[in-house]
């Protein structure tokens, strides 16, 4: 990845706030998964979230586009507060793209249909235009020739790139990634990471749950470490990896880097 690794600081970050989370708490039943989360993401920032399994990383980013409901505190995305108001939720979701660990492509639709579905039905884009946009992003993720196939006919890496393109077709201002590479074979991980790095270089605001520390070092402006539902430490990547402050961070880093 050396050829793409640049100084993450170089990529422009504006002062505008993209996501503002204040004193947010969430429970599953009686289990307190997210505890007093406070976090600000500026437009153009690329944030990597890491932490041990079960620490609430997925839950956190799923709260940001309201796939999960939080119970107390406030989440403001692009100036819209996430409450139970459906209009706000719709608004936020159409501005926030999300890529899942297991791709979640729609197996009964072709790649092109997967990509144009939301633009057509949510954005009410004319079909032709939506297809043009879709092909644009497919070229960007380097698989335009697969447009007419079905997801089941693609490799995992290709599927994940389609999933990224699908999110991009909605022209989101923020992208969320939940362990986008962890279900992939090693050879395919690189393809997907390359795509993500390219995206980062174009200035997309990104929140990415991942354990790919190479990626974190290459593009993140900030790494957030979570444990037991709390944000334990956050720092810019070089500091974070070379000079972790908390004991728990150190332990975690020793495990995953030694791996």
């Amino acid at each position, binding site marked *: 990845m050396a050829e793409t690794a640049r100084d993450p600081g170089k990529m422009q970050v504006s002062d505008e706030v993209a996501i503002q989370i204040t004193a947010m708490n969430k429970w599953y039943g009686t289990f307190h998964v997210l505890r007093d989360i406070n976090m600000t993401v500026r437009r153009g920032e690329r944030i990597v979230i890491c932490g041990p399994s079960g620490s609430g990383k997925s839950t956190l980013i799923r709260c940001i586009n309201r796939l999960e409901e939080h119970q107390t*505190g*406030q989440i403001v995305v692009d100036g819209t507060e996430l*409450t*139970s*108001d*459906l209009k706000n*939720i719709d608004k936020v979701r159409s501005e926030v793209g999300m890529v899942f660990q297991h791709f979640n492509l729609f197996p009964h639709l072709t790649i092109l249909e997967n990509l144009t579905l939301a633009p057509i039905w949510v954005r009410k884009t004319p079909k032709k235009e939506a297809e043009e946009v879709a092909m644009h992003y497919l070229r960007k993720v380097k698989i335009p020739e697969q447009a007419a196939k079905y997801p089941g006919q693609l490799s995992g890496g290709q599927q994940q790139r389609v999933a990224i393109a699908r999110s991009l077709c909605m022209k989101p201002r923020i992208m969320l990634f939940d362990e986008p590479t962890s279900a992939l074979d090693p050879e395919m991980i690189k393809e997907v990471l390359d795509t993500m790095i390219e995206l980062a270089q174009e200035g997309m605001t990104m929140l990415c749950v991942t354990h790919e520390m190479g990626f974190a070092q290459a593009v993140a402006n900030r790494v957030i470490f979570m444990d037991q539902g709390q944000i334990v430490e956050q720092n810019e990547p070089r500091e974070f990896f070379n000079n972790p402050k908390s004991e728990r961070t150190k332990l975690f880093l020793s495990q995953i880097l030694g791996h």
Partner: protein
Amino acid sequence: MAMASDAPKGGFRPSMLIYDTRYRAITIQVIVLILVLLCVSWLVHNTMVNLAAKDKDINFGFLWNRAGYDIDQQLIPYTNDSSHGRAAVVGLLNTLVVAGLACVLATVIGVFVGILRLSKNWLVGRLMTVYIEVFRNVPVLLWIFVAATILSETMPEPKDFKVTDAMIAAGQAPKAAMLFDGAVALTNRGTNIPAPLLSRPLGSLDLGLITLNFSFLAMLAVIIGSVLVHRLLLRRARAVQEATGVRPATWWKSLIVLVVPFVALLFALGFHLDYPVFKGFNFKGGINLAHSFTALLLALSLYSATYIAENVRAGVMAVSHGQTEAAFALGLRPSRTTRLIILPQALRVIVPPLISQYLSITKNTSLGIAVSYLDLRGTLGGITLNQTGRELECMLLMMLIYLIISLIISAVMNVYNSSVKLKER
């Protein structure tokens, strides 16, 4: 820290009823409720108006009126002087008895056929496949007709059993002979079997619609007691096995515990069998099982057995071959492997569809109408309805009873399902 975010949550706007997820659900449910209530009240209103127009009312009083008709199969005392309600109970018992027996019979046949279909014997496997495909791809109603026709067309007439003096003189045997040493006679009008009778019964208590028979209750109590004692015995055997490793032989003890008390009770009550004897037109004494009953029972059993057989096969095949191999590799004998490894796992797959099969057998007993078997539908939903003209009451009552039976069966299924659910990560 003071929550600044509390502020905007205060106000309530009507638009929140539609756009706010919290209220939206309530809105929708209220609308649904209103629609449903409207619908129901519309139906009820129509019913009232229609009843008024026909100068009728809803009144279940007819259940206590004299029925006036005879039922050829009665598990509790009933004459044509009994009430319609009691006729309905007789019908319900007839439904239950045919359903229960069909479930048992279908299970036995189904398990048998399912296993035969799995057998390595090519011919038998094919025959079973043919049986299964033929029976399940033809309406069960047809099988009921066929069974009824076969029974009444191929069996000998009662008079063929008659032995006259002339025949004795000529040394002739009657055309047909009874089975099992004069105990059972299969005729074209029914199956005559010995009736169990008590010479010293304990009496009974009549409660209107149903009758409490104390002799029967006593038998039930003894059976339950024996089973409990038997369970104790098994537990003891198990304890011994756990302690010493050797399982004591229990079968003769089981036999004693299960059989002796019951036999003693029967003896005390003066149990004897009343054999059917040919007299006059027909067999007298014993129990005459009408062919409507037998045909329904046979057809339902044979039809449902095909579904059960497929369940059984699927269940056994769902246990991977690796399980058998592992058991063999541990030195378990095939019979033990079946009992300890295959069966418990196969049963989890077999039992849920089996129980829904029981459910549909029970519902299908209503097809007794085809052979005029007087079950719940034949009495309450048939003759009573016809004689009294109370179709609304009869039908509703009948549906309710079927529904209750179904709910009980599915409750049993749910209990079973949750008790055997495999634990997974």
